[in-house]
Every structure is written in C-alpha cells, then in structure tokens.
C-alpha cells in the first residue's frame, strides 16, 4: 500500500480534534501530578509513622504496576462501588496519580537537597515553621526540581495514548477509528507517531534550556 497525501489531508482535522484532547489530558494530568506529588512527598516526611509508611507503600505499589491496569481499575471497578466517572476524568485521575508517585520523588529529593545548615540557621534566626518553608527552604528547593518535573510531564504526555483504552477520544483513538473505518493503517498510525515525536523533540529542546537555566538536581 502506498502513502496517500490526499488521505492525509482528509484525516488531518479529525486527528487535530483528538490532539486537542491529548493536550487537555496532559495539562490536567500534570496539574494533578504536580499537586498530588507534593502531598505524597509531604506525607512521606510526616512524623506520624503510620501515615508516612502507608503512603510510602501506596506510592511504591502504584509505581510497580502498569498504568493501563490502573486506568482499567479506575474506569471499571469504581463504577461498581457507585463512583461513576467520565472517561476523560477517569483518565486524568489515573495518569495524574501514576505520575504523582514519580513527582513525589522529585519533591523529596529537592527538599532533602537543601543543606541542614539552612534549617538550623532559620531556627537560629527565630523564623516560624511557615516562614522557614516559604522564605528559606522552598526558594532553594524548587528551581532544581523544575527540569526533573518537566521531564516527567513530557513522559506523561507520551503515555496519554493509553487513555484510548478507556474510550477517551484522544489522538490515538481518533487514529484507530479512522484506520478501522477506512482500513488504512499507514497514514493515521504514522501521523500519530510524527505528532508525538515532533512535540517530544521540541520539548526536549525546551528541557535542555530549563536545565541550563536551573542547575540539575543530581549535580
């Protein structure tokens, strides 16, 4: 079968329609992952052993199991216990939760990277807990985290095609339905690959800039 440019232009609007949903899912997922990750990181630092242990195990469990199965779990199991979610909402929660366990590690490393002396100096200067976090710890902890967080958000963007398995009409799903109704796989599947590759390559360049701007976490 030959590559057909006419067919490419014909399916482009549908693919772009799906691409919008892909972007939407990525942005919403990144927000969930960003906030939930911080919550997990703070819970793991908690002095209540029961809380930090159970959150730690939960995060470990999420990281050791496939995102696809977690999405199925949210999409199929939760309705049985009375929580009915729209596919996109279920997808955003699933992908956000999965990546929150990764971003939590970034937050943890970032906070731990702030030297002990800073905490002690804050205490010596008689700052309150709140002041210590807002004026001393976070301003030093956050900049090195930014490239690492961005890295996970790019990874998350690449995983969004999995949402098609729970009937979210994003890029991959649109491509699949085009392919199935026309029985032409080459153009839609290749275009999906190209879309993702182009965006990823651009974001990798952006990431390099971020890394240069803010020092890397592991250095």
């Amino acid at each position, binding site marked *: 079968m030959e590559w057909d440019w006419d067919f490419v232009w014909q399916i482009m609007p549908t693919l772009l329609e799906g691409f919008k949903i892909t972007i939407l899912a990525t942005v919403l997922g990144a927000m969930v992952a960003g906030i939930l990750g911080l919550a997990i990181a703070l819970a793991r630092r908690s002095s209540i052993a029961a809380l930090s242990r159970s959150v730690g195990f939960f995060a470990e469990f999420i990281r*050791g*199991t496939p995102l*696809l199965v977690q999405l199925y*779990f949210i999409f199929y*199991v939760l309705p049985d216990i009375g929580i009915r979610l729209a596919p996109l909402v279920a997808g955003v929660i699933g992908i956000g939760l999965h990546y929150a366990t990764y971003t939590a590690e970034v937050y943890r490393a970032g906070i731990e990277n702030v030297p002990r002396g800073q905490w002690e100096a804050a205490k010596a200067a008689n700052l309150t807990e709140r002041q210590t976090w807002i004026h001393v710890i976070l301003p030093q902890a956050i900049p090195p985290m930014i490239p690492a967080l961005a890295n996970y958000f790019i990874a998350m963007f690449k995983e969004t095609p999995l949402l098609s398995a729970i009937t979210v009409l994003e890029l*991959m799903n649109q491509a699949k339905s085009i392919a199935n109704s026309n029985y032409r796989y080459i153009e839609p*599947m290749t275009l999906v690959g190209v879309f993702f590759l182009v965006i990823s390559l651009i974001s990798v360049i952006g990431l390099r800039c971020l890394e240069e701007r803010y020092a890397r976490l592991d250095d």
Partner: protein
Amino acid sequence: MSVWSGYLSLILQGALVTIELTFMGSALALVVAFIAGLARLSRFFAVRALATAYIEFFRGTSIFVQLFWVYFVLPFAGLTLTPLQAGVLALGLNVGAYGAEVVRGAVKAIGREQTEACIALNLSRFQRMRYIILPQALPLMLPTFCNNAIELLKGTAVVSLISLTDMTFQAQVVRAQTGDTLIPFTTILLLYFLMAWAISTGMRWLEHRMTRGLDGVRV
C-alpha cells in the same frame, strides 16, 4: 469456588505470557542498549548519528504508539509479525533506547585516567573496553537497568491491546465473562507488583555479587 479457580488459572496463564514477554523483551533491550550506547561513543560520526537518531526516535514516542506501528503498519511493508514478536520487538527497542543512555552515561563516568593508563599499557581499543572500562561501568548501570526492567514489565500490559493474551488481556476476559471487576483487576495488580518486587530483589542480589571485591576501588 471452582468457577473462580478456573478464572484464576486463566489469569495465571496470562502471567506466564507476561513473564515470557518481560524476559525476551529485556534480553533484546540489553543487547540493543549496549550496541546503541557504545555506538554513541564511537569515533565515527555516521555511527554516532545513527545511534542518536534511533535513541531520540524511540524515546520521543511511547511504547503504545510504537507497538501499534509495528503491528499494523509493518505488514504493509511486507513484514508480518505475530503479536508476541511485535510485542518483544517494540518493548525491546523502546527500553533499549533508554538503556543505551544508561550505558553511555556509565562508560563516560569512568575516569579519564583509566583510559590513559590503558593507552600507556598499549591495550587495544577492544581490550580497553572489555577488560578495563566495562567491568567498572557495569555496576554503575545496574540500578538504572533495574528501573528499566520494571518499566518494561509495566509496558507489557500494553500488548493486551494487540490481542496478545497476557495478564491484562485475561483480566479483561474474566471481566467480560463474569461482569466482576474488583477481583480480576486487584489480582493482576498484585501479581504485577509481585513481579516488580522480584525484579528489584533479583537486581539487588546481582549488584551485590558484581560489586564484591570492588570495595575501596570505587570512589
């Protein structure tokens, strides 16, 4: 009860497929990682460029997109693969691209003085790599390889979408036949977690073995 044992054996059959995929995928990924990783350090520009293109391509798109491309588009190019072959190929090449960066990083992390000492001792390039650099670089790679292997295990769930009867696929079969969602999905989540745990335990043991006798040598 006997019905459930029937369904459980179905899931366990799927678990075997998942394990098989993980092993074969990891083997391919390991080979590819070393070839591409060392190629990126080559003297020749063409070899370096080829390896870089491969790595960027496979890291720029997700395993899902690659798998669909391999399974649905390659047949039009005259290369028809069974779902298992497509799965192993896509998983191996995808994770291999990540592994290649690990190999490159570990080899570059070995100090220059080692290379200079090899030159002073008149070792050939092959001897330098085989006897001096790689034995020191290997222990550095293992922890990240462990993470990559777990990522590969999680990636295997995606092959259920090209109708390979792995654990996730079988859980969907059980869901379709019984209408029950909680038991099949919880079972496979636990099994995946168990496998991830087995991989990290195995890798830790391997790391322990390989670094034996290196104490005091490594910085």
